[in-house]
């Protein structure tokens, strides 16, 4: 394959195909207990991880966490996965997370906003140094019409959700990287992983299916009632015409 062809492949867009990257972003915060002082009552970690804890480095090149201006160097750049940042502090604030993607993915960065949470919802309970406050959001980064190069590169990567390609469409196989060579960017054995939340698509779908069934049944009932009334009207009309 010539070099020109290769670049063309990289730029060429795949229509009606979208690549999505399921992510979870949020924070885990531990109260410092006895070690807490006026300015540092909590130790927290804010992060963007793969929903199944896969390495996001295949898509995301860099993450920039914008902290509150009272921190030293409030703009923190994380150049490699896992994209996380640990700090200590006393206050909650909104953290803007800017994600920059690999060059063949997208040249536009994307912003996430996470409100740092340190204190548990129900304030009555005693604060514990053992049990952290965990706030996570599930979302998916969607790339509509990805480039062929990107598609080919990530087609078998577990961090990415891909559709089946249209029939007759083949992509050249990409040399599989030696996993051992790479620095590990996944969060599967993350020290905090026991606190990670579960996001079950199945539960959500079940709930929606149940709701839809109820609504559909109600719709059917309404339609029957309407046709019934129409029937009555017809009857009344015909009797009054006589």
């Amino acid at each position, binding site marked *: 394959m010539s070099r020109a062809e290769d670049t063309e492949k990289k730029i060429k867009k795949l229509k009606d195909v979208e690549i*999505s990257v*399921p992510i979870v972003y949020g924070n885990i915060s531990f109260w410092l207990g006895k070690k807490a002082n006026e300015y540092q009552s909590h130790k927290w970690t804010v992060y963007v991880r793969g929903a199944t804890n896969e390495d996001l480095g295949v898509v995301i090149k860099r993450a920039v966490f914008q902290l509150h201006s009272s921190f030293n160097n409030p703009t923190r750049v994380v150049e490699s996965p896992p994209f996380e940042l640990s700090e200590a502090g006393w206050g909650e604030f909104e953290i803007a997370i800017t994600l920059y*993607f690999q060059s063949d*993915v*997208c040249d*536009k960065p*994307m912003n*996430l906003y996470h409100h740092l949470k340190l204190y548990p919802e129900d304030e009555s309970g005693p604060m514990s140094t053992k049990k952290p406050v965990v706030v996570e959001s*599930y*979302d*998916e*980064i*969607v*790339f*509509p*019409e990805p480039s062929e190069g990107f598609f080919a590169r990530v087609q078998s990567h577990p961090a990415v*959700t891909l559709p089946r390609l249209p029939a007759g469409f083949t992509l050249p196989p990409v040399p599989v990287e030696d996993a051992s060579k790479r620095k590990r960017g996944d969060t599967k054995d993350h020290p905090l992983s026991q606190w990670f939340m579960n*996001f*079950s*698509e199945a*539960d*959500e*779908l079940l*709930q*929606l*299916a149940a*709701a*839809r069934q*109820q*609504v*559909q*049944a*109600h*719709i*059917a*009932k*309404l*339609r*029957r*009632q*309407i*046709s*019934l*009334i*129409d029937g*009555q*009207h*017809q009857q*009344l009309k015909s009797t009054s015409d006589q």
Partner: protein
Amino acid sequence: MDAKDILGLPKTPLPITQEKKSQPKKDSQRKPDGISREVYALTGGLAPLMPSIDTTQLKRRPPSDEKITWQWLPFTNSARKDNLQLYHWVRVVNGVSPTGDYSFAKYNKSVDIVRYTDEEYEKHLTDPMWTKKETDQLFDLCERFDLRFIIIADRFPSSRTVEELKDRYYSVSRAILLARAPSPGDVSAHPLIKEPYNVSQEVDRKRALSMVLSQTKQQERKDAEVLAEAKRITESRMAARGVEESTLHVAPNAGPEIAETANVDGTVSPSSNVQLASAAVAPSTSVTAENASTLASLRMLRVYLRTYALEQMVQAASSTAGLRTIKRVEQILQDLGVNLKPRVPTKAVCAEHLELRKEILTLLNLQKQLQYKEAEGSSFRDGSYTEMPGTPKRSHRDQDGIFIPDSMSFGGERAGRRDQKRKGPGRLSDAPASPAAHKRPRKLKASDL
């Protein structure tokens, strides 16, 4: 007892305290100009509710040498022409009674009405619709009642509308002004010339106004009617439920399929009201179009979050619905125990979520339609609702209990009523039996205000 006594302060306190204490007292009584800046700021600089008297008047004490008496004196009123002698109390300073005209005489304003000669009438003012006698009467009345045309119309011997009278008066006055002026330019600034009376516009204005005014009353009455009919509607609905119940017994499996097919082709049973049926179908087609454009604009972003895409789609799907409908959809979602924003917004979840929202919109539409049909039915049955014989009655609550609280059916009712109002005129025309249909013409006559 004094505040100082209570506080145990000396009787002759510091000048500062004295100032503080005495000022508010004066303020409230008769020295508004002595008000301190701070206190005045508290009032927000607002105008007083009651008309206040010029403070300089209050401040000025009457000179001690002035001797004021009040006397019962006769007076004449220049506004009167009969020289009637009346008496009133007058403030007399040092024995000198006030001279000059009666102070209220200046309020007797009279309108300067142009009069014409016979010759002028013949030359400029002849009108096939008006005789000279009528015109003379009109001008006499105009003078007598100072152009109060409502009264003039009331006293006018022949039946003429206010607009006709005004038109005649203003056109005659204009014609005379123009005829008497040496050149048209001399009187062009005169209000009668500058702003000619426009009969048709005036008639239209009053018709529009009376329509607006009569509309609200109509609606008020309609509301009362709706409330009065509520009982009948519930009755008919219960009967309908009974029948539905029996059909369910006959074909327990047929129901959903029928509904499903009806859903697909969009036809909503044989209906007398085509407009309504099409209204129920329209949103689904426009929704797909909006979806396409939303998707296109999302593609332009090159990268976006799934939650953002869902928000956009939800917005596009409900763009045809009103704010209240959107709120109702969200309420129903909550009642169903569904998150307004999915917790795990995968592609499949978002698609399902959107479908659910669309179905709820359809549901609300159908509720509206049913409500409408029930109202329509009860109106053309003209109160003589014949209950289906032998249909088992079932309680309302029993039926609805499975799904969504009563608030839903109640909301549907409200929506239905609103719908009725909006489509009011259209409905009246195809249901002439409705009592409301007679109201409009009568209302129009009352436009001569």
